[in-house]
Structures are given as C-alpha cells and as structure tokens.
C-alpha cells in the first residue's frame, strides 16, 4: 500500500497577506488572507458542522453570507469532484481558524484554498473563530465584510463600507440562485412519480435522493407559474431550500396556495417550509443567529422521536411545538420542533396532502437521520393517486 500526499502545495502561514473581518457593530478581527484577495460583503453567520465544508460552501442557501467555521481545522480533505451541492461556491466570504497546509484524502483533487481562489472567494484565516462566534451569538448575525489586499483600509473606512452593504432582512435572493432554465433529473430505474421541484436554491442531493426513490424530478426556476407546474402533470410538488428572507417571496407563496388548492401532494424543505407556513397563514421572523450545523435535534411531536439534523436557516416560522391550528386549507399542526430552543421545525396539513420541514433531510453535509421524509413524500403521492 502506498500512502502519498495527494498534493504538495503548501502554504506557510507566515507568507500570507494580512486580512480583516469587520462587523457592522465595529468589531474587527485580524487574520491572514485565505483564498482570493479583495473585498466581500455579506451577513456573517457561524456554522458548527465539523465536516462537509465543500457541501457548505456550495450550498445556495449561503448566498450573500460570510460563513464562519467553528471547526478549527479546515481544508484537511481538500476539494473533490463529487461533493459539490451546486455548480459553484455561494458563500460571500469565508472565515476559518487553521487552514490545512496539504489536503489528504483519496478523493481530493486540489487544496481548498486553491478552489477558493479559483472561484474568487475572499477568505480570512487565523481568526479566533470562537471569540467571533460568541460575539455573533450575543449580538446576532449582522452585516460584515472581509477585506484583504487592495481591499484593506482604515477601520473606520471598512466599517463604513459594511454599513453601506445590503441587509439580509428583506432580501429576495431566490431569483439570484435559481436555475435559469428547467431541467430534468431522471428517476433511477422505473419512474414511478413525476415531481415538479421549485428551485429556490436547491442542492444537488435533493433531486438525487428523489431520483433514488423512483421520482423523475423536473427542476423549475423560482419564477415558475402554476401553468408551468401543471404542464408537467406532476404527482407532487417540491419547494426547495434557499437563501433570503421568506417574507419577500410573494410569488412562491402564491404558487404554493395554488398547489394546496388543487390538493397536489406538496413537500418543502427549509425555505420551502417557511413558504408553506406563510401560505398557511403563519408568520416568519429573523432569528438572532439562526441554526447552522449538523448536530441539531428535531423532535417529531407525533412519534416523540428525535432526529439529528443538518440545518442552515436564519429565519423561522412562528408557532408553538405541537400546536394544531386552522389554516385556509384546513387543520394543520406544528409537527416538528427543535428542543434546543423550541423553534418550529416542520408543519403538516391534515386536510390537504402537504408537509414541510425546516431542516435538511437531503443532508449533504450532515447526518442522514431524516432521509425517511422522502419516503413520506412517496407515500403522500401514492395516497393521492
């Protein structure tokens, strides 16, 4: 057996250029440039996952966010050709403590910093990410900027530039991440169902998991109308995850109402959960620092069982765990909640075939405990036949 380093690309920390992370409240964290140099603005959020940085970076839900990795050693497994969750890196900026000098994994093709640089992602390393995370925890996710190279300026200038950048509240971002044209992911084996998946920032693994269960997935742009959906003659409709403020998605919410009117089986994930909730008359709100990680418990109020889930959301639905409420589409229940803070993690309709969860059954990255929800979607579509 040979064990070879997959690459000998090494960066000595001392050789890197200075960089700064500046928060809108004036907090400044100095470090060294990582990936591309320049300037990047976004909402600074922390992600507590210990694995899966490649999936995290390519998750469209992180669009316009500066992601802080709490796991201190990042880049150890390099960058491979299989684990992207979309066609590109979406994070606006990247904050880590200790980047790997070389990657080591049999699937690695190149070092992470090379990929960050190639895609122009401005990052910063050697930041005390724990101090930063505690700051975000206490003061909330907020606007921030990563500055390096020519982007570096005086603290006042950098703070001023952050203050000028757009805010996440009220941001309608689905249009920026959605597919420009419809495409089809064929079913593995015999196609038993046809699904219209509204792409609000969909991850690759979602159609993959549907396909594995005999679904032919027609991924439609966020602008798809009911006519577009009906044209496919779907057995079910899927609302994907995605970035931005759910309060801005009047179009998707209206589309969802039409799906509910027609009693088409509906399944939503993350952003899709918020949209279904809004269609049912619930409100959404911005959380202080959100849920971003892969260790988050979710309680199913019907079975009293826990799933450990991957999550990535900064907004949530209003609601009390287990509460039954009356919606324009009949009775519905807050079916899932997070026992850490009792936030809403899922809604289920009783009079129409629709349910959604705030977390990520498609995982990637994260645990697979909730994969069974795709089977529930299958059951829902079977029942509706």
């Amino acid at each position, binding site marked *: *057996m040979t064990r070879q380093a997959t690459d000998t690309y090494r960066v000595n920390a*001392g050789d890197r250029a200075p960089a700064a992370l500046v928060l809108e409240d004036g907090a400044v964290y100095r470090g060294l440039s990582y990936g591309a140099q320049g300037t990047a603005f976004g909402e600074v959020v922390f992600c507590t996952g210990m694995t899966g940085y490649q999936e995290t970076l390519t998750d469209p839900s992180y669009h316009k966010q500066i992601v802080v990795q*709490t796991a201190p050693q990042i880049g150890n497994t390099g960058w491979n050709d299989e684990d992207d969750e979309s066609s590109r890196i979406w994070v606006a900026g990247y904050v880590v403590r200790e980047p790997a000098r070389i990657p080591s994994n049999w699937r690695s093709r190149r070092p992470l910093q090379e990929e960050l640089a190639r895609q122009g992602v401005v990052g910063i390393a050697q930041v005390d990410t724990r101090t930063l995370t505690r700051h975000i925890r206490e003061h909330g996710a907020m606007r921030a900027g990563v500055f390096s190279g020519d982007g570096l300026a005086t603290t006042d200038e950098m703070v001023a530039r952050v203050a000028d950048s757009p805010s996440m509240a009220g941001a309608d971002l689905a249009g920026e991440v959605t597919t420009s044209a419809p495409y089809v992911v064929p079913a593995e084996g015999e196609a038993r169902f046809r699904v219209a998946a509204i792409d609000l920032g969909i991850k690759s693994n979602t159609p993959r998991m549907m396909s594995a269960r005999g679904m032919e997935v027609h991924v439609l742009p966020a602008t798809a109308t009911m006519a577009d959906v009906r044209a496919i003659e779907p057995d079910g409709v899927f609302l994907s995850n995605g970035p931005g403020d759910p309060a801005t998605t009047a179009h998707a919410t209206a589309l969802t109402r039409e799906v509910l009117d027609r009693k088409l089986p509906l399944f939503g994930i993350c952003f899709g959960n918020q949209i279904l909730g809004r269609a049912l008359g619930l409100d959404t709100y911005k959380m202080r620092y959100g849920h971003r990680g892969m260790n988050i418990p979710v309680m199913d109020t019907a079975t009293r069982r826990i799933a450990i889930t991957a999550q990535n959301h900064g907004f949530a639905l209003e609601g009390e765990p287990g509460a039954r409420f009356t919606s324009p589409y009949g009775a519905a229940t807050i079916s899932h909640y997070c026992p850490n803070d009792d936030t809403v993690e899922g809604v289920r309709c009783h009079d129409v075939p629709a349910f959604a969860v705030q977390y990520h059954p498609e995982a990637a990255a994260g645990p697979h405990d909730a994969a069974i929800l795709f089977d529930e979607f299958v059951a829902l579509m079977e029942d509706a036949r």
Partner: protein
Amino acid sequence: MPKRTDLSHILVIGSGPIVIGQAAEFDYSGTQACRVLREEGFRVSLVNSNPATIMTDPEFADSTYLEPVTPEFLEQVIATERPDALLATLGGQTALNAAVELDRRGVLERYGVELIGADIEAIQRGEDRQKFKDIVRAVGGDVPRSAVCQTMDEVRECVAEIGLPVVIRPAYTMGGRGSGMAHTPEDLERMAAYGLSESPVCEVLVEESVLGWKEYELELMRDYRDNVVVVCSIENVDAMGVHTGDSVTVAPSMTLTDREYQQMRDVGIDVLREVGVDTGGCNIQFAFHPDTGRMVVIEMNPRVSRSSALASKATGFPIAKIAAKLAIGYSLDEITNDITGETPASFEPTLDYVVVKTPRFAFEKFPGADPELTTTMKSVGEAMAVGRSFVEALGKALRSMETRSLGFWTQPDPEGETVESALDALRTPHDGRLYTVERALRLGATVEQVCEASWIDPWFVDQILSLVELRAEITEAAVLDEALLRRAKRFGVSDRQIAALRPELAGEDGVRTLRHRLGVRPVFKTVDTCAAEFAARTPYHYSAYESDPAAETEVVAQRDRPKAIILGSGPNRIGQGIEFDYSCVHATLALREAGYETVMVNCNPETVSTDYDTSDRLYFEPLTFEDVLEVVHAEQESGTVGAVIVQLGGQTPLSLSRRLAAAGVPIVGTSPEAIHLAEDRGAFGDVLGAAGLPAPRYGTATSFEGAKLVAEEIGYPVLVRPSYVLGGRGMEIVYDTEHLASYITRATEVSPEHPVLVDRFLDDAIEIDVDALFDGEELYLGGVMEHIEEAGIHSGDSSCALPPITLGKADIERVRASTEAIARGVGVRGLLNVQYALAGDVLYVLEANPRASRTAPFVSKATGIPLAKAAALIMTGASIKELRARGVLRATGDGGTLPPDAPVAVKEAVLPFHRFRTPEGHGVDSLLSPEMKSTGEVMGVDAAFGMAFAKSQVAAYGPLPTSGTVFVSVANRDKRALIFPVKRLADLGFEILATSGTAEVLRRNGVPCAEVRKYSDDTGTTSGARGPGEPTIVDIILDGGVDMIINTPYGNSGPRIDGYEIRTAAVARNVPCITTVQGAAAAVHGIEASIRGDIGVRSLQQLHAAMAPAGDS
C-alpha cells in the same frame, strides 16, 4: 417516559483492580452512575474489589461491598441485598462478564433481578466475532473478508481471492498460539501449515489484513425510544495494527470528508440497532483503506469503554452518567445537557478545538519485554490535551506525559541517526514514534517517505513538518519577537522547548520572562459541547494561544470565595495511579465544603478528578511548571487564590512545589523546604539523627568504584537506586560486586544528574507502612500496615494487612512515636507516609514521603478514616483537634487504636506480566523486586486474616484451590520455614510435587510428596531415577497439572532459569504462584478459610460502623 417507578434498588458492578486495558476510566463511569442513581432516589448497592476507587467510598452508595467481582461473591451480595436490578455496563468487561455469568447460572432469575442497560443476547451478538460479522453484512456494511479453511488447498484458494497479506488464526488454540500475519506466499505456506497442525480441529481462519488502514472509532448512545446519537468520532494517528489504547488518537476525526463520516455514522447506527444494544453507550471501530476509501467495521464494545471516558472528556458529554439515566428509563431528550443547562442531551456534540490523547508506557519496568506496539494493549495510562489546533494539542499532550522527553527537542537527538535509520525505525510501531517522525523529517525525509514507512496519514505528518519548519525559524531568527513567539506558542511549543533551541535565553525561566514582557500569554477557552452556539454554565477550560492579542479568555471572575487549586497526578503509570486521583478528589470535596471554590488541574482523561462536576472549575492542562503557572495566573486575575495543593497528586505536583513557591504561588500544607528535607537523603538523615531514629546504613556514590567501596563497608546485600524516585524506579537488591557493576552500568542511564544511593538491605525484616496526619501539634495515625512479603519487595507490589497481623501494641506505639518524631522533624502539615523495617527488634526507618501515599485510599476503606479529606483541611489551616470536634476524624483514638475485634483488610497487588512478551515470544519474568511493577490493587476484608487474604487472592488472581496439586520449589534458606505450611497443605488433602532438593527436605520432615524434573533437567543430566523424556515441572504446569505453585527464588544463588520458566508458565496458565514464604503461609490460611466455606460478605458501611469506638458517631 419519566424514570422507572417499578425499581427502587439497583446493584452496580465495578471493574475490579486496575489492569492494562481496564483502568481508572471505570471508576469515573461507575462513580457517575452511582451519583446519578442516588440523585434519582434509588437505593444503590455496589460491588468492587478496588479500594483505590472513588466509587467505593462509603458515601457514594448505600451499601458498598469491597468483595471480589466474581459470580460467587456477587450472588452472596444479591442474596443479602436483594436488589431489583443490576447495572453492569459501566464496569468494563469484568462487570459485563460477571453479569453474563450470573444470568447463565440462573442467579438473576432466582432472585428476580432485572439486568438494566444491557441485553444478554445483544452482548453476545456484539462479542461473538462471526455473529458480529454477519450482523454488519446484514445491514449492508463491510467487514474484512475471511474464510475458514481446513486444508492447504482451501487456504491457497482463499488467498487467491482476498490477496496477501492475510492474518492466520488457528481455531481453538490458547492465547493466540499459531496466529500471525503472512506477507509472502512462503509465509503463507509455512504459517498456515503450522496453524492447521496446531489447531486441535485442524482449522484456521484466513482473514484479509487491514494492517496500515486508517483507524476510527465512534462513540454512540441509544435510548429506549431508539434515538441514537454519535457523541464523538476519534481518529487514530497510528494506523491499524496498533491497539487503539496504544495509539496517539485525535478527536474529532481529521481526515474524513462528510460523505465518509456519514457512511461511518450510518453503518454504526445500523449495527448498534441490529445488535440490539438496548440503552446506553457503545463503541464501534472502523478501518478505511487509505487509497480506495473502502470502509470495514472491525469490532464493537456494547458497553461504556475506555474510549467512552476519553470521548466524555473530549466533548463534555458525560456518557456514563447519561448511560445510567437511560438505564433507568429516561430518553435522551428528557435529559438536560449539564454544560448548557438548557438544551437536551439528544444532540451530537460539536467541537471547536482539537483533542489529542497520547499513551503512557512502562517498558522500562519490564526489561526484556518487546517494546513493539501491536494489537495487544501495553500502555498503562494516557494523557489528553485540548488545543485550538492539532499541533497545539499534540504539544500539550507530549509534555503531559512526564517522560524524559517533554515535547520535541527537549532531549538530545540519538547519535548517528540518519534518514534511513529513522525511516527504518518508523516501520516498527514503538513508544515515542512521533518523535521519530519529527527527527526523520528534520533529517530530510519527505512527508511521502515518512508516510510510506509509518502508515501515518500525510496530513498528520505534514503537521509535524510544520513544527520542523517552525523549529528552523526559531533557531535562525535574529531575535525572538512577539510575532514569532506568539506563533510558536500557537503551535503548542513550550517555553522549555524554545529554551532548548535558544540557549542564550537562559532556560525556560528566561523564555517565560521574555514572553510575559511581550504580553504573550494563553487565553482560556471552554469545552462546551456546542462550539459556543449556546452559553456554557460549566467552567471546563483549556488554554490556547491565538494570533489575536485581544482574543477572549472565558474565565469568569469570582471574588466572593477564596480559590483552592488542586494539582492532579497526570497520566497513570506504574507507581502513580488512581490512588492519587482519589486523594485529589477528596480534597476538592472537602475544600468545597469548607467554603473554597475548588479548581482542579489535571490531564488524565480516565479520572474522576477530570469530571467537570467534581470541582467548581476544571482546567484540562499539562502538569508542567509553565502550564500550572498560567492557570494560577488566570485564577488570580479572576479572584483570590487562597491555596494551591501539591501534596495529593503524587510525585508529579510535588516536584513542582519549589519552583511554584519561588514564583510566589501560595502552596499550602507541608512547605517545599520540608518536602526537600524528607526527600534529600542527607537532610533526612539529619532529621532521623536528631530524633534518635535508626535507619539502615547507607552511602551515596557517583561512580562504580565509589559504590563498590560503600557496599563493602556496609556489607552485602545492598539496595541500590537513584535518588528522587517514585515507584522504586531503578531500584535493585544487589548481592555481590559483579551484580553491582552491571547495575551501575544500567542505572546511570536512568538519572545522570543524581547520584546512586546504596542502602543496607535488611534480610528477614518485616516491612511496615504507615499513613498519618500531622498538623504541627498532634499526630493522627491513619493506619499501620504490615507487609506480608518481607522488606525488599516494593511496597506497591507487596500485599499487606491492616490492622498489622503480627505486631503488638508496643510495636505500634513505637511506630507512632517514630512517625511523630519524623513529622515534627520534617515539618509536615497534612499527610505523611513512612516505611519502616522491623528487624531484630530494631525499627529502622526506610523512607518518608510528605504527601498522600498510594495506600491512603486503602487505609481509608479499611479503617473508615477519611485521610485525604482531613489532610486537605489540615493543609488549609484546620487542626486535628478541630477535625475531631467537627466529626471529620474520630473524637477519640485513631487508626493505631482499632478495636481488638476490628476486621482485617488485606491489600493485594495486581501485576501485568501476562501482557508482555520478549521479542522472541517468551513471557517476561514475574518475579517481584524493589522496582514496582503492579498496575493496581484489590482489597479483601473479613473477620480474620485467612479469609481476608483468600478474598484478596480471588479478587486479584482468581480463587485459591481447595484441593488438587501444589508444586513446591524453594531456595535453601526458605526450606525450613516452609515445612509447616506445606505439611498443612498435605494434611488438607493436597498432593505435593517438589523438585529434588525441596522434596528431600519435605520427606525427611514427614511430608509426603512426589518428585518432578526441573526444567533445567530437560537438556542436562538426569536427576535420580527420572530419565529424559519425562515431563518437567514446566510441562506439567502448562498441561494444567498444577493448581498452585510455591516458588521462592533467592537473588543470584537460586536456579534462576528454573524459577523464570516456572513463573512464566504459571502466568501463562493463570495458576496462583506464590514467591515468598510469608505469602505461602498466608495462602494456607486462605485455603483453610475457603475449605471451611465461612467466607461471607459485609458492606463497608457495616464494617465501619463496627469499628467506630463506642460513643463515637
């Protein structure tokens, strides 16, 4: 579901003595379990034979039985206590095996005891190799490919499919005889043929080798609702082929992508469910092929394990505590995460730091033992370190080990080492392998070369390369500026390491001064289970260096109560084990009660002291001067440090006392000067002289010539040793000049900066061990122990009895007076341990240790006196008089004035000889000597000595025989003393076998016996009527024809080879082997008691109540 209401009384089984592979971690888990169950309102009964544990303290259970963890004794306890349920998953393999056996014998059913937290069938499914493989395959997992073969053709066919190398395992051979790894077709032919011939059923298992694959472990928990969480992933730096207990390990895993990690998690959870682990914890091991990523499942432990303790400390998720809660009917979501105080335990901890564990070995204790690391665990302890990066944690872990090297570059490089020789050394796993990696890289080896030689993942090798590069920078820099210094500290490099590279900085102190002047100090972060997502309520801290000088430190100010900082004992090793942790834990409990905020500093993940709720604050830090000083500084910044206690953690903290005191740290108790008085031979001699106390004559020498002169002057035999040692390191009894010469050659390597001490060795003396408290005024004897073996065997390896079995009141009073004189002369405040030898009616003082001793917990269990607690209170200013008045100590009398009918407690040492082999595959000698070799101890307690001794033997080694064959072969000088005990055995119906000389003496004294051939007769001349070809005694022992062995060797004069072969055969067959006259007499007592069958069980609470003088509460 809330907790079960149908149970009210639970029996917990502990793991017995500390042995390699089953150590203090089960005291930690058992203690947590007992705490939880009592908090939940259950009555708790406990069985554990190990007196050095916290769990066996009378206040941790309602009824505590220091009885052997065997089905027989457990049944007696069950019959007495009638518990509703049995919890056995927190006491290691020992407890689990005992529970399985109780079930098999129908005991559980007979007494209506429910086994909770485990399911017998699940245990068997998890532990049966073939069943387990089938389960893994059934859930879609992969296992190493294998086939059972009965012919060479089948073997060849199988290997054609799975490829070389393969592991050959013959079926039904003992101790793995005939197994091995075949790398070449020639190996295969030879080994498989041998394996087939060795197997009584002519069958071998041929298995695909996973040697060199990447090794991982997952710690999982499941509740009765089938919720499963992964608490921690652990990656082994050493690849498959080195036991995980002997590997350097890292948490969380460093070199897996999410896809592979989740694959491991999925299979782990599926296997756990399929095996059917009801509730509780389990550990599953995996291997990944480094080039293809193929993942196989290796094995599982369906219980709390050593890795669970590590995972608990590494994550802050208390596995054992939660396992106990799950066993009594809670589900994970019903249990609160203590650390956050808000979120539930139904989550998976996430780490924003890196944890490194390094093993501690003791090969120096077993000369001749093969130091190659294999799949058999050989380490005796471990240290864990937490840092913000792998290299930082690694540096902290290496300097926690207290080995000669305190991190890279602190010892001179081996002379003449080359890239080739270093790479060659890396091909064989060995202790200190990462040091070799560093040197190989520094000599110019590439990362690829090192990976190829060592099978260590390139990522780890590259991390060490970054240290090599840093070293060059530090060495070459014109000046050490703040930036470079800060960077070095971020890489986990100690002041001492920097000092080694920059001699002009005037040593470690110079580096520290410079560092402090430049404002480079660590921050203290928190282990909080959640990467700072939620606020932590539990101050469980570790130090780290950040680039940002303004990085946050998380130590919260507390200025209401004074702080007491207790320094723990570091990694377990032979000579410094769990006993010291016991004393530290007691100190924290006592001082918390006395109004202090207690702060624990320790780096041993196996212990109760490093449980985050033992002390008010926990610092998981190396016990070096630098690290301790920074902790003290952080605590001084956040409040008032009233007391620093160095006296309870053994030699490790004690050795820091002078420097800490010099740095202004408020050390309480016996002063560093007084410690020096006791430890320095000359100064101590003056103390003894002033008090008129005799000591064996001695001298010191720095050369062989000098030692020879001293020895001749005081007369052989002499005891030689280096100064300042713990556990008798490097100590030997020397009988002649030749032997002395060979010792000096070896010993000067042990400790070059200290001279060799030469003491008169007292033949035929009774050794006495005393633990006492002294407050400056009054002496309080904790206990006076009489060693069963004569002086000359290390006190840690010797069995002893309390109360002393042959000493009269006058002797004890003499001991009291001498101990008081020493305590006064040295200036002890707190605990004092003195060793005496009584020879020819003279009470010689052998040594005094002004600190908690190894025997402190045993004495406390035997007498009911809370020695360590009292010591902590005395150190912080209380007097014995006050403690008597407050009821901490008995109002009248002490451990020297036990009532005449006090039960007798016997301590027996447990030795690890069966773990070690010479490179040629032979056993190592099991002879006891002044050098301590035992890993743990047990206690047997009963109304009289014989019964107590019998129990101690059962607990340590298994029952003494009550019938059968006893083999006797003793040195000439012991023959007379052994006639009576052997005659008694013959009278009791034992058949006696003896070698010619011993047989002759026995027959002349009317003891019937049969003569057997010595081992050395095998190839030499025939002896008497016995011709070659007849079995020798070694053959008979190996064939199971002997039930007990009495074999006393004597220095150089006895038949050494015979003794060695006999003793190693005894170890191989697990036959009781007694190597001293006194031990033989004690064994006869024990056998008589066993035959009478009047050995019962009594709880410690009952025993202590019986011992309290009338009128005492």
